[in-house]
């Protein structure tokens, strides 16, 4: 099972864009690690204005945290994260300093 938890700040990522982002997260990730894109779970957590900070200031950063099957080679993991980053920036218009992407090994405990 591949899972993404996407934490976004209120007003930064429009709701009507989220299905496309979710679809691309699934497509790109299964392209690297295998699996069925339809079985990728994408959860959205929207942080209300005034509840998210970065560097002590109000945040505009989105965090895209993926859990993938364990054992991916680091070189491939970096390519995956870079692909996810490029897609997200392309679709949302955010900058590199407004995005955190992770691809963590899934813990089965």
């Amino acid at each position: 099972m591949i899972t993404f938890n996407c934490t976004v700040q209120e007003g930064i990522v429009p709701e009507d864009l989220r299905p496309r982002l979710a679809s691309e997260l699934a497509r790109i990730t299964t392209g690297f690690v295998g699996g069925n894109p339809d079985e990728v779970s994408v959860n959205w957590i929207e942080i209300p204005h005034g509840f998210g900070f970065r560097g002590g200031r109000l945040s505009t950063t989105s965090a895209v945290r993926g859990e993938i099957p364990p054992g991916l080679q680091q070189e491939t993991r970096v390519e995956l994260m870079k692909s996810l980053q490029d897609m997200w920036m392309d679709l949302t218009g955010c900058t590199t300093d407004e995005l955190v992407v992770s691809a963590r090994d899934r813990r089965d405990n």
Partner: protein
Amino acid sequence: MPNYRCFIPKDALSFDQRQEIALAFTDIHCGSTGAPRSFVSVTFLETPEGQTHEHGQGYYLDGGNRAGRSEEVKQQLLSDLTQAFAKIANVPADDIPGRITENPASWTMEGGFVLPEPGQEGAEWYAAAAAD
């Protein structure tokens, strides 16, 4: 990273308190680890009365950091964060449980770069981080 999630009861903290806590956490984390300030995320998640969150009820500090620091550093960091939160929120520190979990830095890309392991940052990485 780091990413600090503060679970709080609904309407427990004003905006000014949340901002003050976020600044305090940034100061404490960067003072302890040397990390760039712009990398410190602090999020407040409210729990409506009568409901529970993933760690139970009431206040909870859930930190996620890069792996590789000593247990002593982690415990001191959590203690300092808890004390700061308690003072600003006017809540007894004993009522604020928390934890710091870790993941390998190489599993995260931030500011366009794969995060270096603690102690492996180097001048080039700090310069790039500061430019963001």
